[in-house]
């Protein structure tokens, strides 16, 4: 809360700085802006940036560093004996943080007085009572060292925030004064603002890149941790997927093969649906359709791409599944047991991918130069001969790229499989049987109370990592092919 106020304050300060800077610049030259090096607004922006950027940076860095520091100093002050009672330091620290948060909210609700919450020798029972009547749930009993650690955690956190606000506000004010003092007619405010903007853009770009790196790193570390608990060969080559939720580890079978099989099978069905339909639609739209039809049909196809996948999932569950069951179920052919099956999910996913394939292929077909077509027509080829023998071969690498991109989307798709394919991990050739995919299993391993020290939960990271590597590989190949193809005509 206080952090938000601090942020608002420096924003307000920087806005004020803008007007102050501009005003001062103008008044220094008696309102004749021709005597200034830069336009007055640049002097204003300079002051605004100086008041905002360093303070905001400090705010961010401090907000990240403080919890790390507090955690570190508290955990090193906890006596060894207290650690050995619970299983690990990490768990104990989690408990300490919970108690500290609990103290905060019980004090806010008034069930415990502030003095009691700060008293290191407070009666443990009355604290526990206070927690209970405030509706705070504790997983284990509060011990004295835990309470004391929580109390010092609280005070360090509060002090830290207090000093942070002071520092940030002070820095912002300093920046403001600095900026105003810089405001002289010959000062090159324009160039400074230019640089300031560049820094802003760079930091936006690096946030995007850094978070990606962070996600990948966390995937890697957690995957590594999983492999210390569960043998990698069993994971990659195990043909059975049967996680147990009873105890920690032990009897679980966590083989990825059935899941990969389901993923690839469903994706295959989806591509078999999406590629011909999407490609033919693209050929029709780009080669045969008149301009009016094209102007109508293209956006309509693209609407399909805008439908959230959960809606497709519902469609699979409520429409396609029952429809298939009526034909292939016990009433009909008799090879389908339930509405959820590889076929159901694959068909619907295929429909989802049609606009993806068609709009990519359409772009690629349009990129084939008209002169190629003219050359073919001038030799007496018909339109379909021209498409088959000139346009498609020329566009082929690009189309293959589009298909690979579609495949990587199919592999990563979750909602349609969760609703349409069932939850049984099995390796079967019958497309009318329920199977499941890597993504669906990641969801089911992590929904509910996941204990992130057990292989049953950590396996999600290994699954995610595997998917990531597969789709990354596909994307790289696809982009490589597409780029290669572009070079051909440029």
């Amino acid at each position: 809360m206080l952090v938000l106020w601090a942020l608002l304050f420096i924003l307000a300060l920087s806005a004020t700085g803008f007007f102050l800077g501009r005003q001062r610049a103008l008044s220094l030259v008696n309102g004749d802006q021709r005597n200034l090096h830069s336009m007055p607004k640049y002097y204003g922006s300079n002051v605004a940036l100086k008041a905002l950027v360093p303070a905001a940076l400090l705010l961010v860095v401090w907000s990240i560093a403080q919890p790390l520091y507090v955690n570190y100093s508290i955990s090193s002050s906890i006596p060894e004996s207290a650690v050995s009672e619970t299983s690990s330091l990490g768990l104990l620290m989690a408990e300490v943080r919970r108690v500290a948060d609990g103290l905060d909210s019980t004090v806010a609700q008034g069930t415990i007085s502030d003095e009691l919450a700060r008293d290191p020798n407070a009666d443990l029972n009355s604290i526990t009572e206070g927690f209970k009547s405030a509706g705070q749930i504790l997983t284990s009993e509060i011990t004295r060292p835990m309470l004391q650690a929580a109390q010092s955690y609280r005070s360090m956190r509060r002090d830290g925030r207090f000093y942070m606000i002071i520092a940030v506000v002070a820095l912002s004010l300093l920046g403001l004064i600095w900026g105003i003092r810089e405001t002289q007619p010959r000062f090159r405010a324009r160039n400074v603002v230019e640089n300031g903007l560049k820094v802003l853009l760079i930091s936006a770009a690096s946030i995007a890149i850094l978070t990606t790196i962070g996600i990948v790193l966390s995937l890697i570390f957690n995957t590594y941790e999983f492999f210390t608990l569960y043998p990698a060969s069993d994971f990659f080559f195990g043909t059975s997927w049967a996680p147990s939720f009873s105890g920690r580890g032990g009897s679980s079978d966590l083989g990825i093969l059935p899941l990969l099989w389901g993923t690839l099978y469903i994706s295959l069905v989806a591509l078999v649906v999406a590629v011909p339909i999407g490609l033919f639609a693209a050929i029709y739209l780009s080669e045969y359709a008149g301009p009016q039809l094209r102007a109508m049909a293209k956006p309509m196809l693209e609407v399909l791409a805008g439908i959230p996948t959960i809606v497709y999932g519902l469609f699979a569950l409520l429409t396609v599944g029952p429809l298939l069951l009526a034909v292939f179920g016990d009433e009909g052919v008799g090879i389908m047991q339930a509405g959820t099956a590889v076929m159901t999910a694959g068909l619907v996913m295929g429909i989802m991918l049609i606009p993806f394939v068609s709009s990519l292929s359409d772009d690629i077909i349009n990129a084939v130069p008209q002169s190629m077509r003219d050359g073919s027509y001038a030799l007496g080829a018909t339109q379909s001969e021209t498409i088959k023998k000139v346009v498609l071969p020329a566009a082929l690498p690009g189309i293959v790229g589009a298909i690979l991109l579609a495949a990587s989307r199919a592999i990563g798709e979750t909602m349609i499989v969760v609703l349409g394919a069932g939850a049984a991990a099995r390796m079967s050739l019958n497309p009318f049987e329920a199977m499941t995919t890597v993504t669906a299993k990641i969801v089911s391993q992590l929904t509910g109370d996941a204990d992130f020290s057990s292989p049953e939960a950590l396996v999600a990271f290994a699954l995610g990592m595997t998917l990531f590597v597969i789709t990354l590989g596909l994307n790289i190949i696809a982009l490589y092919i597409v780029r290669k193809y572009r070079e051909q005509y440029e």
Partner: protein
Amino acid sequence: MKMDSNKIYKSEAATSHLPGMLHEAAKPKMRGENVNVFYGEKQALFDVNLDIGANEVTALIGPSGCGKSTFLRCLNRMNDTIDICRVTGKITLDDDDIYDPKIDVVELRARVGMVFQKPNPFPKSIFENVAYGPRIHGLSRNKTDLEEIVVTSLRRAGLFQEVKDRMHQPGTGLSGGQQQRLCIARAIAVSPEVILMDEPCSALDPIATATVEELIDELRENYTIVIVTHSMQQAARVSQKTAFFHLGNLVEHGDTDEIFQNPREERTKNYITGRIG
């Protein structure tokens, strides 16, 4: 507008080695009568009357935008590929109206081939580029037949010596001049009767241009050729007949020597001497 479409050419084809041509010479291979072309509302050609003599080279000249390409594209109905383009009047090939709804456009284009301003080989091998037309028209009985056609066409286009060791490498890997000759080989592989060339040398260096011009001169023996060019020298060098277009009108046409030495129209004279264009 003064028009004398009835003027009968004393054809240069008299020099042809094909004896049968002697009687045919007087009769034009293609003939345009009152050709008007519209792009949407805009009219691009006005009542053009022009005969294309058999076994000779007709050059179309005129300033940019005057309708040379438009007229050329009427002759094999390549204008059909432009949605907004509309053609009226009559164009005949050997007395058949090519805009007759009953005519097979695909066959027409096999008889009236075209070489474009910018070389546009297909992204296939040199062999496949030339074999493309014969394949779709089924001109060969077997593989050796097809190879024969490809080699003959390449030889005629003056390219065979340069590419005989790399027949199966992509045609797009050739130089600009080689690509243009490849496109010419591709066009003659389907044995057309007329070859239309739209500024075939505009992307070529002088040496490649000279090769293509020599080639055109040789091709005249067996084909009727219409060439659009911006180079007066080229028109004078390769053509027997010249037609001058200006603002969508056919201003003057006749023997090339006469047009260049003794133009009847003021506008022609101004264009040839470089005062308009």
